[in-house]
């Protein structure tokens, strides 16, 4: 009863809440319609592709559809001893169907990935079927195992069983140089084939140091920008932004001109006698080139958020710090620096996230020791055409970025971040 009587009514007797909702509805619809195009755009260009990437990266339905009967009869097999007759029979039925549809090659390829040696034995089985040499009234187990000794090896049947689930994490494991071994456990690939882990670590390392360099160089520039009189700061701002307006490719190419062994920087070093002419250092096609070019290219992303934060810090705060007895360093460290943390957070987050997925610059100036994980993704997209693996690595990268974001949120608080 009390809730009924306590309800506030408008002068016309309509409950206030209802009236308010009615009055606000029009505005809400308008606002929604205004953001609608952007929302659609985001869903089409962002949410769908990522969903597609995700399904592609874990998709393993092809083989599930190829051997439906085999997998069904394998369900009751414990994987210890050789499977029963029914498994062999169903495998024969499935395989024969594939031969009829001329899809047996795909199966061989897929199973070979799971375990080396499938190609040969499946070819053998294929030839037997083509020549109608298999007696469909006899024991399939006996006939198939007698074709090749590998058919008698339980490992190969276990490998088939492992491919049964329609989804697989194999691509993700591969991205971390891991694989599922014969026993279904996770194992590392051979040492000389562990390339991805090196790339991940290098990507993190380069992104981290590029962020640090950008911070070290950007902080004083941003401070100068924020404190100089207007006419000088505008000029400096243009100097900071000018590279920003130049094409990325042009900037990277100009770094190549500068950094190559016969380039301007090396010429200068030789001229001032820092290095001898026949001993010019390599500054490109390695990490140095990647560091230098990426730091320069990403610097504005550090300077701008820092600048926008520093601009809001009143100069009287530093003065207050000094007048209260703090040395210039104490005043800076205790007063000014903590107030710039939102800008540092935003700048570092931006630079780190951009650096971790950087592609063009490392591809051009990175060489073998300066390429990053994104170059590997591109390689799989364009050269090996292993899109599901590229998708898996792309998603791993995305997860990494989200983790970084989460850590920043814990440390700085996303609400505190100012982007300008």
């Amino acid at each position, binding site marked *: 009863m009390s809730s009924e009587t306590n309800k506030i009514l408008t002068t016309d007797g309509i409950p206030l809440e209802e009236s308010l909702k009615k009055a606000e509805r029009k505005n809400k619809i308008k606002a929604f319609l205004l953001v609608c195009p952007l929302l659609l755009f985001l869903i089409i260009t962002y949410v769908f592709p990522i969903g597609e990437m995700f399904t592609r990266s874990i998709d393993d339905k092809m083989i599930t559809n190829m051997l439906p009967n085999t997998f069904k009869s394998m369900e009751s097999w414990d994987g210890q001893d050789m499977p029963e007759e029914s498994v062999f029979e169903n495998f024969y039925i499935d395989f024969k169907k594939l031969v009829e549809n001329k899809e047996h090659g795909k199966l061989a390829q897929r199973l070979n990935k799971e375990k080396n040696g499938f190609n040969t034995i499946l070819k053998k089985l294929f030839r037997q079927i083509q020549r109608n040499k298999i007696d469909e009234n006899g024991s399939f187990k006996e006939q198939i195992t007698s074709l090749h000794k590998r058919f008698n090896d339980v490992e190969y049947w276990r490998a088939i069983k492992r491919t049964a689930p329609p989804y697989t994490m194999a691509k993700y494991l591969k991205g971390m140089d891991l694989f599922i071994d014969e026993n279904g456990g996770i194992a590392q690939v051979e040492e000389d084939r562990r390339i991805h882990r090196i790339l991940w670590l290098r990507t993190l390392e380069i992104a981290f140091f590029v962020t640090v360099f950008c911070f070290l160089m950007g902080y004083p520039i941003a401070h100068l920008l924020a404190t100089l009189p207007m006419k000088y700061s505008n000029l400096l701002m243009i100097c900071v932004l000018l590279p920003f307006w130049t094409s990325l490719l042009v900037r990277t190419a100009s770094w190549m001109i500068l950094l190559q062994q016969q380039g301007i920087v090396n010429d200068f070093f030789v001229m001032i006698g820092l290095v001898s002419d026949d001993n010019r250092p390599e500054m490109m096609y390695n990490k140095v080139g990647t560091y230098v070019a990426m730091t320069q290219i990403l610097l504005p992303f550090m300077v701008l958020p820092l600048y926008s934060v520093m601009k809001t810090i*009143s100069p009287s*705060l530093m*003065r*207050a710090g*000094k007048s*209260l007895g703090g040395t*210039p360093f*104490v*005043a800076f460290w205790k007063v000014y620096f903590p107030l710039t943390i939102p800008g540092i957070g935003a700048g570092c987050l931006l630079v780190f996230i951009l650096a971790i997925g950087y592609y063009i610059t490392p591809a051009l100036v990175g060489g073998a020791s300066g390429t990053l994980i994104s170059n590997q993704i591109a390689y799989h997209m364009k050269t090996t055409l292993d899109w599901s693996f590229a998708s898996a690595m792309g998603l791993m990268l995305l997860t990494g970025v989200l983790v970084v974001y989460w850590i920043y949120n814990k440390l700085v608080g996303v609400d505190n971040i100012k982007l300008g």
Partner: protein
Amino acid sequence: MPNNKEFVKFAKVDKSYDGKVLVVKDLNLDIAEGEFITMLGPSGSGKTTCLMMLAGFETPTNGEIYLDGNPISNIPPHKRGIGMVFQNYALFPHMTVYENLAFPLRVRKIPKDEIDKKVDKALSMVSLAGYESRMPGQLSGGQQQRVAVARALVFDPAVVLMDEPLGALDKNLRESMQYEIKHIHESIGVTVVYVTHDQGEALTMSNRIAVFNDGKVQQLSSPDQLYESPVNSFVAKFIGENNTFAGEVIDVTNGKCKVKLNSGGEIFANPITVKSKGEKTTVSLRPERALINPDEKMDNSHKGKIEEVIYHGDHTRVRLNLLGNNEFILKVPNSSANLDIKLGNEINIGWNSTDARALDPK
């Protein structure tokens, strides 16, 4: 109080920012220990520059500033031990009230329990005890202001500088803060140098006021002297309300001069800066010194026509046309005796020549 008359001393201080214009010209100013001195002046008059030089954020182009007898031009701000209250308080927004107050004590490496004691004392002095853990952003303007005052005083500085500290407050709050700062000054006896462009503030709070204009101290004296006997027409105009008559001295006798006004008519005045016949002058008269229907003793008596009447509650402002000056202001107390003040009426106005100060013609 051991009064050192020259506790803070500006000696022949010049200051220029661009090498072309002197912002402060030949400033000589002595501030006594425990004194509340206000630098008052319009914006751009050099008063804040003086304060900044004293605080150490600007260096004098020429001359020297002494603090307790020692030259301080080469001492960096953080070693001067001068407290400062800034225009927008400059509270550290990322620190609590306690941390703000503890900052000057921590950098002086004072032990923790002593810091607690001093912070407590300073906060109760500005009646903000219990606000230690608040952030400055959670305080009202007046409270922030008090924290700023407490922070400038907590480390017992010899001198506290205040740079228009009440500028951002509303009128009522400003007035109550004026009294509060005045009382704090009286109770702890610290030397205060206060900068403002608000003359009311200056008159209420100060022991002495230095009126700045054009980089120079125009007059340095106590509030009542400044108001009652300005030494030049700038001070007269700047402090309080003022009726002025421009004219020429035609006679000086017995400390009394006769001035022929440009608009016609003659008045008697008190010669302050004028010495002899023929000099141009501006005569300044406070509105409350002119009376309606004067008695015989007053040596100036003229007829004026009421042009405007504005009701102010406790008094009425009357604008008259008097001796060709139609900006003549009269402040009339609201009493039943003054009922004939109606628009268009002609009334008799009179004043003593001693109250009409004949100053420089500017």
